[in-house]
């Protein structure tokens, strides 16, 4: 140790790229370490309930891959992805109204990787990405790592408000900002659970088309509807202005790490090169196994099974919220994994999290889903992983936390208002993988 200069324990501290600024230890992230303990009911995570996938279905596919394609499955593959799997992905997307060419598909390491590749292709420091308010937390991490200026667009219980989008674009352009794309999760959104109806989809597309703004449509949950299918994908009616991201993480299992991007041909060419530059090729083994699974298993029946599991859990969560926290408000998702809860004024979901962990329940504070410190009076609750019984117990514990916090606030708000303080110097919240 240098006794005069001291040490900061990181000799490379001054060497990091500017884009890594803000990647720091986080008290909130540390609290989620506790959520992995079995005593804690975690309503924070976004992990699919893969136990609902019968092992035999995967086992059969695995055996056939090893027997029939062993050497190829363990070899490097094409940077664009396995041709037969791309053909099958067309069938998956057809369920949501998409007609496309197999040439325009690029298989990636989960759709998260596709999200990063698209951002890498389009974003220079300071470029604007438009995103729903709130938006997917790990998309924010990607955008910020490329130093994008994320600007949120107001949403309501039907998703993006078109008029607000128009106004946002106008005001940003008036400031001289360069808008690159609109990022949206239009079906059963993460974290909101809301779905953009068809009339708004076409209106949003029309606005973006007329303004020359690309749409990045991220659709991990579209097939996981409960009561009625989501409207067709935005990509189903707009080929040139939409990059569509899909994944097998929710309809099969995230452990395979296989997703895809469907892009207009010029973008697709660059995506393939960027994919190869990053990873050479997506996992051949995973692609072969999924391809076999899609060929031989009743994959649509399996998606139906998942729908049933998640529908039951959604019902358990909404019922428990009605019973235990009737004074709060929340969204009523018709699919997907998440409920977005609005707390009473001045209740700060981020500040309240330690108390929740003490009560053995975890959620994701709303601030994680905004780039600007907003969201403190919201929380995301996920119903995908815990059983209905655990969900109910989790909401009961949450009600103890919320009511305790309301008591505390009512005691102290008599002295002076308790403004919720935004901290602009907060580090980027990089969620644990299980939370995404």
């Amino acid at each position: 140790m240098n006794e005069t200069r001291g040490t900061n324990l990181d000799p490379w501290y001054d060497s990091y790229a500017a884009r890594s600024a803000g990647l720091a230890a986080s008290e909130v992230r540390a609290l989620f370490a506790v959520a992995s303990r079995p005593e804690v009911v975690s309503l924070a995570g976004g992990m699919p309930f893969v136990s609902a996938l019968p092992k035999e279905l995967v086992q059969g596919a695995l055996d056939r891959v090893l027997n029939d394609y062993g050497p190829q499955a363990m070899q490097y593959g094409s940077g664009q992805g396995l041709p037969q799997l791309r053909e099958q992905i067309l069938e998956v997307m057809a369920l949501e109204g998409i007609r496309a060419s197999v040439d325009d598909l690029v298989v990636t390491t989960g759709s998260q990787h596709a999200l990063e590749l698209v951002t890498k292709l389009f974003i220079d420091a300071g470029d604007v990405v438009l995103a729903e308010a709130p938006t997917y937390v790990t998309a924010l991490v990607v955008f910020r790592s490329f130093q994008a200026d994320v600007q949120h667009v107001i949403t309501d219980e039907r998703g993006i408000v078109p008029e607000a989008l128009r106004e946002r674009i106008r005001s940003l352009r008036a400031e001289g900002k360069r808008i690159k794309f609109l990022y949206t999760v239009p079906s059963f959104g993460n974290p909101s659970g809301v779905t953009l109806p068809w009339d708004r989809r076409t209106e949003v597309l029309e606005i973006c088309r007329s303004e020359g703004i690309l749409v990045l449509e991220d659709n991990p949950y579209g097939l996981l509807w409960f009561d009625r299918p989501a409207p067709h994908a935005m990509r189903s009616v707009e080929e040139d202005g939409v990059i569509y991201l899909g994944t097998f993480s929710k309809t099969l299992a995230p452990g395979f790490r296989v997703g895809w991007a469907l892009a207009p041909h010029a973008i697709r060419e660059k995506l393939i090169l960027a994919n190869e530059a990053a990873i050479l090729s997506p996992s051949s083994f995973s692609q072969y196994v999924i391809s076999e699974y899609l060929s031989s298993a009743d994959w649509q029946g399996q998606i139906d099974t998942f729908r049933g599991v998640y529908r039951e859990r959604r019902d358990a969560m909404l019922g428990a919220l009605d019973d235990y926290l009737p004074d709060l408000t929340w969204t009523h998702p018709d699919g997907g994994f998440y409920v977005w809860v609005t707390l009473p004024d001045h209740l700060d979901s981020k500040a309240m999290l330690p108390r929740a962990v003490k009560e053995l329940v975890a959620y994701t504070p709303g601030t994680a889903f905004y780039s600007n410190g907003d969201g403190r009076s919201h929380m995301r609750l996920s119903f995908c992983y815990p059983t209905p019984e655990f969900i109910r117990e989790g909401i009961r514990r949450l009600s103890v936390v919320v009511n305790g916090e309301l008591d505390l606030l009512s005691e102290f708000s008599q002295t002076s208002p308790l403004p919720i303080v935004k901290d602009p110097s907060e580090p980027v919240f990089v969620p644990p993988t299980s939370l995404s």
Partner: protein
Amino acid sequence: MLTSVLVLAGGISHERDVSLRSGRRVADGLLAHGLEVTIRDPDASLLAHIRATRPDVVWPALHGASGEDGALRGLLDFIGVPYVGARSDAARLAWDKPTAKTIVARAGVPTPTSITLPREAFRELGAIGILEEISDEFSGPLVVKPAQGGSSQGVTIVVDREHLPRAMVDAYTYWDVALIEQRVTGTEIAVSILDTGDGPIALPAVEIEPLGGVYSYEARYTAGETRFYAPARIDPPVAERAAQVALDAHRALGLRHLSRVDLIIDGAGTPWFLEANVMPGLTETSVYPQALDAAGFDAGMAYRALAEAALR
């Protein structure tokens, strides 16, 4: 003879993540010095596991409640397994910051003026009156912290009195008793104490200079966010006083084996006691391993010596 050590790391406290990292560092050090080491996250099967495997020594690298509050140590006493660190009764006293301050003050060690306020007091007496009284009695910035807990969680420095209610709420989020302390400005140091059987010695004080000005959770556990000086940039007589104060606090609290005493040196060179930690952080960015290094000790060797001391 010492051959096997069970390192406990994790738990369900708010500092679980820190504990997991501390535990792995301790285990690595012990393994490198020839011991059989098992790391275990304490759960309902822990006591049965200890009874079945009978490790020579348990190293509770647990931070926060149950690890530092003496509860787990009491159980280890009960089943007769030696462990590293303070005994349960001493840990319980040191863990509670107001209690530790009282004991240390009685031993003649200066500690900042403070008031301890259970949440119940506000319920009974009303927040308005109490907070007005505090504002009148204290001058200058305050530090509001949960009476129990570590890693700066729930701690707020209050410069503007308007922010006091919010700081109280944040502290009570972690624990139902809050400590409001006069903020002493000066050089922030931590003195690590090591006792491997020949009596406690104070390792060189480590000076802590967070780049952002506050030694927050982020500053503690992000390499690069805090500059450390070991030994601290203080005059030798002040360093001696600080070492003596830390030893006095360690003894007054009845601690053993290892502890870390956090102090502030004011402009006149007086060391003020803030708190003592019975299981200091042992992560890559923690102070204790830096103090060992500054004293010329190999950390793994020191951890082994501590485990041997526990066995005696």
